[in-house]
């Protein structure tokens, strides 16, 4: 039988100290000194008599594999054999210092919740846990029992946006917008004589009575067709940088309480997707960091959920690829490009789309830079990078591409303004 409960030093220390005290008392002839050794000897005897038998087991449950929350937690259950009534838990979560606690395990089972606050999205690792089983009377220990970290997919939150710009070229025969074509939409176009193909249900009897009392000519009510707009969200997942520029080297990970550029891009894309879907339009998703099939244009809550999952799963893979040709976008769709614009690739692609006739809105998702911990040379390097980036954004703006800043600016107000300007100048 393999011993899994090991004796620690307390049995030996108590026994030896007690025996030495007792021996010294005997030698000198002082019974009171011998009595001083009693608690130590009793501790040793008690520990030897209460050796646990059986293994300590550990389980952790994350609750759900996909969450939308700023706090991640797991439920840890410790099962100990009789006699083992204490455990020391040490837990480590990415970006946080390790935490430790000594807890009681009454009745052989104890369940605890471990929490970590996090504003990050995407695939996140939860806690790595080590548990040491103990007997509080001293003498025996088990473990540590190791539990590797579970993973959970954190979905981006969908902030509420009132108005967002959509494409001016409308498509289809159903949707929330009125187009110039004749159709079955809610907006009335005119009253015209009945022609072949017109439905008799559309006959306007009042107009007919006014214009043709003898009913020689029937008049029908004609309406504009309803149509929908198309929006394509393009996320630049080639890089994922945090606000602290010192972590851009790659050796340090961003803290769980700091949103990175990809977190901001996911949040912005999810918010705009929700606004578009709620308005009844269609939305699709493309990822510049991956050469894969894009999420096609569609509407509805299920498509929004699918899109949100795809956003959460997007991440940088390997070295950032350089795309020479812009991904193909459905004609007439408005493009939202979420990028940090730290290199020319995203800006060049935005220019290509604009050349092809798409309206492009560039959303700058770089977090507000934190320069703490940088050397003087590194600060100069950051300044040069920042100047180049600003020049890139100014060039985009001058070429007619709307540029919004998501972090540190009022993107909702900017989007609302752009949508209203578009509504006033929209061709019918």
């Amino acid at each position: 039988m393999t011993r899994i409960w090991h004796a620690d030093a307390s049995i030996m220390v108590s026994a030896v100290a007690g025996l030495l005290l007792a021996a010294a008392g005997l030698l000198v002839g002082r019974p009171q000194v011998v009595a001083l050794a009693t608690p130590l000897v009793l501790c040793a005897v008690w520990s030897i008599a209460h050796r646990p038998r059986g293994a300590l087991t550990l389980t952790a449950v994350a609750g759900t594999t996909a969450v939308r929350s700023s706090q991640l937690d797991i439920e840890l259950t410790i099962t100990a054999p009789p006699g083992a009534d204490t455990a020391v838990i040490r837990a480590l979560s990415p970006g946080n210092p390790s935490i430790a606690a000594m807890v009681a395990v009454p009745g052989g089972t104890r369940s605890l919740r471990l929490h970590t606050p996090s504003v990050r999205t995407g695939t996140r690792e939860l806690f790595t846990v080590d548990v040491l089983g103990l007997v509080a009377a001293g003498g025996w220990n088990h473990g540590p029992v190791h539990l590797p970290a579970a993973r959970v997919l954190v979905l981006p939150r969908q902030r509420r946006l009132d108005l967002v710009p959509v494409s001016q070229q409308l498509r289809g025969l159903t949707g929330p917008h009125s187009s110039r074509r004749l159709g079955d939409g809610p907006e009335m176009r005119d009253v015209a004589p009945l022609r072949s193909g017109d439905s008799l249900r559309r006959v306007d009897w009042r107009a007919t009575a006014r214009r043709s009392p003898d009913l020689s000519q029937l008049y029908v009510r004609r309406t504009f067709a309803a149509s929908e707009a198309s929006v394509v969200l393009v996320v630049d997942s080639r890089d994922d940088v945090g606000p602290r520029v010192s972590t851009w080297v790659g050796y340090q990970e961003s803290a769980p309480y700091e949103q990175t550029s990809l977190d901001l891009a996911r949040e912005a894309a999810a918010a705009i997707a929700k606004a578009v879907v709620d308005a009844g339009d269609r939305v699709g998703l493309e990822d510049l960091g991956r050469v894969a099939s894009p999420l096609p244009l569609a509407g509805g809550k299920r498509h929004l959920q699918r899109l949100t999952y795809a956003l959460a799963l997007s991440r940088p893979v390997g070295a950032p690829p350089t795309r020479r040709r812009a991904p193909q976008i459905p004609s007439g769709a408005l493009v939202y490009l979420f990028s940090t614009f730290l290199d020319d690739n995203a800006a060049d692609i935005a220019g290509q789309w604009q050349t092809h006739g798409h309206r492009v809105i560039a959303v700058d998702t770089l977090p507000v830079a934190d320069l703490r911990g940088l050397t003087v040379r590194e600060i100069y390097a950051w300044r040069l990078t920042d100047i180049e980036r600003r020049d890139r954004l100014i060039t985009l703006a001058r070429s007619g591409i709307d540029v919004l800043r998501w972090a540190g600016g009022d993107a909702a107000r900017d989007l609302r303004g752009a949508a209203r300007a578009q509504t006033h100048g929209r061709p019918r």
Partner: protein
Amino acid sequence: MTAAPAERATRVLLRRVRAAVTVPRFWRRAETSRGATIEAGNTIPGWYLHAGLAVCAVGAFLTAAAAALPAGLVAVVCVVIAAAVAVTVRRPGYLAFGVSLAPTTIVLLAVGSEGYSWRIPLLMIAIHASVRLSWFTSQVSATTRVEVTVVAAEGRRFAVINFVGQALALLAGVLTTVSESGDGGPASGTVWIGVAGALALIVLAIALRTGARSWPRRGASSAR
């Protein structure tokens, strides 16, 4: 009544400053509390136990050496014991207990009185508490949170064991006094028989309580 130009300029300046420092309502840097937590019951930090160990270890020596040694020497030994406790913060173990027990025992045997005195109960509590707190501090660091439930359960066990020890010490003291008053001399064999017999009864009680199967059996096979 129109406002003075200076007042108007001040209002404009204040508006601009307010606009510059106000974060737009839509976007705020996502604020969240930092650091992971374990949802345990009421807890105390581990350094409380280190402080308790320091108190008990120094207290044991002071109890033994009070009014028996020069104050300077007592102070030096207390500092050494406190330093040993500080070392155990970085290197968990029983160093502080050993450093405290050695001079305490020497002083008690060399200088202490022969009979039962006020030192004995205090010493028993301090020495017992030192060894138990040494166990705790060897399992947890200064920043580890320790549930009050664990400490309370240990406190109950400590009280039971220490009570038995105190009873035994009191018995020894009584028997010593009786034998000395009877014989007029040092403690006789009756005292030792009485103390040893009481201790044997206690050990027997523990063995019967826990059952013979809990004791290690000679010849039991075990694979390493």
